[in-house]
Structure formats: C-alpha cells, structure tokens
C-alpha cells in the first residue's frame, strides 16, 4: 500500500506537538502511524456530500454563566504547590526575553 506518512511529516508533527523522537523511534512511530492513518482513510468511502459535521451529540447551544466574580474556594498556596518551580505567587519559567 502507498505510504502516506514520511519521515519529514513525522518531524513536522513532532515540532507542532512539542515532542522529540530519536531517529530509531521516529521510524517505528512513522510505520505505525502510517498504518493507522491508512486505516482511518477507510471513512473516505462514505458518501458525505450532503452531510453536516457533528461536533456534539447534544442539541444545545453555548451555555453561559452570569458574568460575576466569585471567591475562589481553594488556596493559592495549594495551587502553587503543584508548580515545579515558583517565586512568590508565580510559577517560574526560563527567561523568555533577552
């Protein structure tokens, strides 16, 4: 069967998804993804010319809440305790401006 996914595609997808694959991993992942995408392509057989996409099984439109500020019941320090690195009330990231 014709291959749909080449190594360049895998590298592009990795860049978009912020993932790195080693060259060996890259090839085995490419093969598997190519096989699965080939299988996904089965739905191309379905005639959907008159069909609209179905994003949600529910008929409801957007659900809004009243735009009112509410007290947060949790504690800031509990939220921040999950941050891998923090300073005061903020998580820290590597320098973004030089």
């Amino acid at each position: 069967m014709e291959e749909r996914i080449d190594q360049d595609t895998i590298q592009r997808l990795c860049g978009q998804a912020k993932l790195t694959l080693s060259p060996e991993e890259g090839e085995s992942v490419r093969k598997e993804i190519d096989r699965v995408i080939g299988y996904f392509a089965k739905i191309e057989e379905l005639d959907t010319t008159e069909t609209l996409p179905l994003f949600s099984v529910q008929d409801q439109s957007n659900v809004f809440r009243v735009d009112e500020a509410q007290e947060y019941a949790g504690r800031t320090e509990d939220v921040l305790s999950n941050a891998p690195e923090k300073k005061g009330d903020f998580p820290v990231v590597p320098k973004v401006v030089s």
Partner: protein
Amino acid sequence: MQLEQMSALELGEAIAAGRVTIPEVVSATFSEIRSREESLHCFLTLAEQSARQQAVRLQAIVESENPFEKPEEGLLVGVPFAVKDNLCTKGLRTTCGSAMLEHFVPTYSAGVVNLLEKAGAVLVGKTNMDEFAFGSTTETSCFGPTRNPIDPERVPGGSSGGSAAAVAAGECGFAIGTDTGGSIRQPAAYCGVVGLKPTYGLVSRYGLIAYASSMDQAGPLTRDVRDCAAVLQVIAKKDGLDSTSVETEPKDYLKACVGDVRGLRIGLADGAPDTKLQPEVAGALERAGDCLREAGAEVERVQLPYLEYMVPAYYTLACAEASSNLERFDGVKYGYRDKTARNLSDLYERSRTEAFGPEVKRRILLGTYVLSAGFYDQYYLKALKARRKIKEAYDSLYTQYDLILCPTAPTTAPKFGAYSGDTLAMYQSDLFTVPANLTGCPAISVPFGEDADGLPIGLQLMGRAFEEPLLFQGAALLETERKGGRSV
C-alpha cells in the same frame, strides 16, 4: 457472608441495620486491599487515613440521627468506593497513570466524587489506568499494569482496568471509571463485573481530566446491576460547572432493575460479516437472546449500521481531541518539568518528551496529523460527518428497537502482551463499544457466562439517550439468568 463478597447495597443495608459498623467495613476493605494488592496492583494511591476518619465520623452520624430525609438517599452510607485516577480528588494525588502527573495533587474534587462523598460513600483510593486513558489493557500505565483477578496472567482490560479489577477482587464496594470508547464496559466484561457508560451529559465531567471531551463520561463499575443503578442514582445530576451536563427528569433507576422485559423490542447484533467473535462469546450472545425471548421480549437479529467505519471514525475524533486536550501539559504550572531546558520552547518539548509514554505520543501525533492543514477536511471533518451519519442511523434503529444486544468485546480477556507492536488490533477490539460514545447513547456491560478457560464473558445492552432504566430492565433479566438455576 464475608464483607468483601457483599454487594454495595448489601453492605449499606448491613450498616443501616446496625449489623456491622462503618469502621469495621473500612477496616475489612483495607485488609482485603493489603492481602491482594501485591499480586493485582489495582490501586495507585490509597486514602487509608482519611477513609478511617470518615468512617468514624459517619458512624457517629448514623448512630445519632438519620441524616437522610428519604431512606433511598442513604443506601450507600459507609460503602467503600474507589475512583479511577483521572478524576480529581482534593488533596489526594491524581496521576492519570502518567509520569507527567506523578506528583499532582488537585485542589478540588470531581463532581462525581463530591456527590458520592455527600451520599456517605467512603473513598478508599485511586485506581490504576492506561496512561491518560489511552489503552485497553492498563499496560500503558507508567506505574505498571493491573492483573485480572480471575486469571493474573490476563489483562483486566482498560482503560479503567484498576477500577474493574478492584471491584472483582472485593477491594471496594464499587468503583467509578470513565469511558471514552469502552473504557468502563470492556474492563467490566473482562473482570466479570457490571459497567455502565451513562448518556453523554447525564453525569458531570467536572474534574475529569479530559481525553476526548465530546465523548468522555464517568460511570459505575459494580458487582451487580442493582448496585450500578444505586450509584447512578447518586451521580446523575446536572452540574453547573460542566456546561454539557443536562437537567433531566429524576428517574428511579433501582425500581427499573426488576428484569421485566415483556414487550421490549430488542435487536441482537453479532457484528459485521468479517467480525471474528470468540465462539463462546457468540454462543453466550445467542443464549442471552433466547433468555430475553423466553422472558417475553421480541428479539430480532439486526445489522449494526456503519460498523466497519465505526473504529476509524472514533479514533480519528478521539486522537484529534486528545492532541488538543493534552497541549496543557507543558511543565509550567503543574506536572513534570525537565530541569535542563534553557528556553521556554525547549522546556515544553523536553518535559513532554520525557514524561509522556509511547501510546500517548502516538495518539498526540495521530491527532495532530488529522487536524493539520491539508488533512483536516480529509480526516477530521470527514470523521465528524461520518459521526452524523452514524448518529442518524442509530436514531433510526432506536425507532424500531428499545435495546440493542451485542457482545461488549469480541473476545474474553487476552494475555499480557497480546497487542504489543499491533496498535491497530487493539483499536479494532473496540468495535462494539465505540458506537455508544460516537452517538452519546447509554450502554451497559453485564457478565453472562464464561469461556472454556473460566474467563467471564460480557454482553452489552445499548439504548436511547437518557433511557438508562430500559438498560437496567434488560440487564437485570440477564443477570437473573446468570445467577439463577440455569447454566449459561
């Protein structure tokens, strides 16, 4: 009877009648967990201290007054339960089976957890699962797999494998799992317990760490059908914090568990012509059809529409949603962080690369591909259109039938490693479970007989949206036949 063999409702009743105290029940549960965990590994985190404290507090309430206005609201008081580790529990580690969240401690609890605790059930711990619920065996958990209590050489199914195994092994009274493409029903079938995926919107997704948001639902895994109904009674509630949760007419699910199927129209489906069913599964399906017919249902053979397109459409959509949902794991505000990154982009990339397992990466890349420019229309949009066709075909099927009876999975529980290197074979085994997720309809798996190796067979009943009572009616009948004098 031993406490660990009792159903959730039997336990609740024994507690209410004063035959056993809640601290005794909780102690017995932790002894059972201690004796079986080394071989089974159902749990990732235990909440022993808080469970024991809760038991004492609840016992005092039970003895001093009756805090529940209606007796049916107190059915689960003191009953120990376990929760899949992708549902947030305040102050209790929630990992999703991933190194990414190995040390994550939520600051709030999921809607379902809050409702169950309010109903007096006692949380004993968090159960093992495939990493981010991506898998059908628990083998993708970064903490190692769970073993099937019926045969430890076999997988418990997945992704809610820890929850199903914990219920089957008597390590809790009932458990909560989540189901995006069969993750409650398939492990229920493999472990010989009951598992329900409720109608999309019936149960809150607040605090459920998202996989595919348009299909995720939390639901019960229980020893029997009545327990399943009792748990659903508690968790089926509109939640203002989940905008897809729906206000519905209150229903009495327990009352539906009478096994009266007279006059119900049931379609019996054994798959597409090329579906390979294990002979014992096919046999059980036929016998279940006979049981229902003898009990007064009209049973007819039916072809499930678009069956061969079901799995490709499902995985296209599930991977697309997953790739988007998992963007949030970037190593900044919570979760794993690489310590060597020199800039922000590097931090994202290294943290994700180091913490995500192979199946997670695979699904993110698949999802990124079907959503990317040039392929969006061909795959993602096409799958959404296929979803509408599938939904319309099922809506039409449900005008002819009240319930659809089919296998939950084509086989009983496979051995470990059965799918290694064959991702596609694993995906294809979800054939019978994904229709309920694509259409949003409810579906229940009930144990019905065993194969030649003594492994449980699960059969599935699907029905119209919000008609869980009909599912319970049919499931209760099949359960009577299984438990009753007749050998299936």
